[in-house]
């Protein structure tokens, strides 16, 4: 499909429903050969989509069911349950979402489908973070941690090993991504925070929190330790045993000295820690910082000198679809295309996540929304989230600026280290200390 054609595909025309658009809109040759009875036959198909709270919600499910000629059943699961389900009962799932911290679990398992690039309509409009492994300007990004390009392509159709060089088979279709940084209470910090190194500055002793875990909390700690000059790493996102030992020993020392106030396990805890003033500097996810602000409490989420911690969520289809009902597989591909075509992307963009096809979003978001969320422009009117809540007043500028200001300096990616087994074991020692 040419760029020209796909840009002309407005959300409205696309959403007239798969029945009407299957022939017309998809007639560009990407998904070919749908007989006219397709819409009729697919009516009875139900697609099971399991995902996180960020990627599955009733509003989007309702719209999908309206637009497509078949039924989408969404299930929201916590990450542990979701991965366990995919690994032990993959046949009960058609479509699943997961992030870079889970990508290490799918190699050599044979549970995910190798998605042919030719069956995903928007690949040529997808940001090069995923397609090429570079920023928009073509510069390569940090390869520390599970960088997108490390798990974007299958080496071949057998879907066993990843390839960092582009191939014809996708591990997943990138849905959303963002760059995380430290959350700061500007009204309570003793001085301005500009480096991750401040996390271990004694001025903040007893007033910092880390995410509790080896995939996000440990990378955050490693970036901060390196910035503070306490550690050096070859690759913070994939440490050696020796680096793990040194890191954990340092963290134990700091914990015993009372440096940490808490470790959080979920969104609500991180919001509460910040809003209540228990901590003034901590690991945080972008929507949590926004949530603190909507309560009328100042919370900064600024990019720091050493760069941000990047993450992404892929949407994948399960391997069993390839050997099952052809019609069902077609519906799944149709649905996955739908997910990035408009409604869904606009919905989560308005919560602060980035779509992997920003140009498509631009055509479908209001100028004010797109300007605020993607372009770093001051809001010309109040910014309202998809639930109707005012997130920012007119005049506000997004922390960190535009998409590429924020996303263009990733220092490390959320990760799952090769030495995960050893790291988890040592993390247990740290927690017990």
């Amino acid at each position: 499909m040419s760029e020209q054609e796909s840009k002309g595909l407005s959300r409205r025309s696309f959403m007239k429903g798969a029945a009407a658009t299957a022939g017309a809109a998809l007639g560009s040759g990407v998904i070919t050969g749908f007989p006219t009875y397709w819409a009729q036959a697919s009516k009875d198909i139900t697609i099971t989509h399991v995902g996180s709270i960020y990627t599955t919600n009733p509003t989007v499910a309702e719209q999908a069911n309206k637009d497509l000629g078949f039924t989408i059943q969404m299930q929201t699961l916590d990450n542990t349950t979701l991965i366990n389900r995919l690994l032990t009962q993959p046949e009960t799932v058609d479509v699943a979402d997961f992030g870079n911290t889970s990508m290490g679990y799918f190699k050599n398992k044979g549970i995910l489908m190798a998605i042919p690039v030719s069956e995903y309509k928007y690949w040529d409009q997808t940001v090069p973070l995923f397609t090429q492994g570079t920023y928009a300007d073509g510069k390569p990004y940090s390869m520390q941690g599970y960088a997108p390009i490390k798990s974007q392509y299958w080496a071949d159709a057998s879907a066993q090993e990843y390839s960092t060089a582009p191939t014809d088979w996708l591990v997943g279709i990138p849905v959303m991504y963002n760059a995380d940084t430290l959350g700061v209470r500007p009204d309570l910090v003793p001085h301005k925070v500009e480096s991750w190194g401040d996390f271990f500055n004694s001025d903040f002793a007893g007033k910092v929190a880390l995410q509790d875990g080896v995939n996000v909390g440990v990378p955050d700690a490693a970036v901060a330790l390196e910035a503070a000059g306490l550690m050096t790493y070859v690759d913070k996102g994939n440490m050696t045993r020796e680096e793990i030992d040194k890191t954990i020993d340092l963290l134990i020392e700091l914990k015993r000295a009372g440096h940490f106030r808490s470790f959080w396990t979920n969104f609500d805890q991180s919001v509460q820690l910040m809003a209540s003033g228990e901590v003034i500097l901590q690991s945080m996810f972008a929507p949590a910082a926004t949530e603190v602000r909507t309560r009328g409490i100042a919370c900064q989420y600024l990019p720091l000198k050493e760069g941000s911690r990047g993450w992404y969520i892929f949407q994948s289809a399960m391997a069993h679809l390839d050997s099952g009902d052809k019609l069902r597989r077609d519906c799944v591909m149709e649905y996955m295309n739908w997910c990035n075509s408009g409604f869904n992307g606009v919905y989560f963009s308005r919560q602060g996540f980035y779509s992997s096809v920003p140009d498509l979003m631009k055509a479908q978001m209001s100028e004010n929304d797109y300007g605020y969320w993607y372009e770093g422009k001051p809001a010309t009117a109040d910014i309202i989230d998809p639930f109707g809540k005012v997130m920012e007043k007119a005049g506000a500028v997004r922390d960190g600026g535009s998409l590429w200001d924020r996303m263009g300096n990733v220092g490390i990616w959320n990760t799952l280290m090769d030495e995960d087994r050893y790291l988890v074991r040592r993390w247990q020692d740290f927690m017990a200390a």
Partner: protein
Amino acid sequence: MSSMTMSPRIASWLQATPFTLIMTCLVMVPLAIILAVSFMDYGFAEIIPEFYLGNWTDLFRSSLTVDTYATVFRQLAMVWSITLVLGFTISYYLVFHVRSNMWRAIFLAACAIPFWTSGPIRMISWVPLLGREGLVNQALFGMGLIDQPISWLLYSEFSVILVYVNMLTMAMAGPIANSMAKISPSIIQAARDQGASEWQVIQEVIIPLIKPGIVVGTIFIITAVMGDGFLVRAMSGNQMNTPAVAIMNEINAFQFPPAAAKSVVLLVIVLGMVGLLLRFVDIRKELAR
């Protein structure tokens, strides 16, 4: 059935069958699987079915086991002694001092009020109370007793014990009150008539008679504290590791074999403690009384 005859032997077998089946399928078989898995190796979210002793050698050689059990036993001892004192006092007042049945019912219902809200909500609501800017610190500050907030009120062993006591006191008070209610007033009257003081009545008459209640309450406390991972994580701000928390950490990392080994050890220890307690008091006999 009247025309059919069945030997008592077969009848007993049939009666025992449903429970045997449930115990076998839902308890013994899963436990056997857990035990088997604990002797296996593991990779990224996969169990490698090869004999591997590493999970067990780590358990018995590392300081992690000692540290986590030291933490949980320390917490158990504190929670048990505090809930015992509170449970006994509350039950004693309700059973022997509140004369009206209506008031007794009202007081009992009042004890249950905190449980009307869900557990997670109750856990979250401790933060505005105990936090640095919480009510307790504000009150102490207002009274001029402190000049900067006390931080050990929250995300500390103190907050863990406090919330355990809040959640578990009724588990101790219930069985004790039940045992007390079975004490015949005439026994106490007899002791009084012999000139026993209230303290002597408690010591010589009531305590020996409520031992089964104390044992049942103790079993509740042991299983609740030893098996809990959620409360201790939330209230310590994930800064404490207990055997149950360690198992949760490994399950979240999809590392099932070491989690299985830790589960077997935890189960054996808890069963051992409960078994030991049951040697002192024959609960079945006492409850049937």
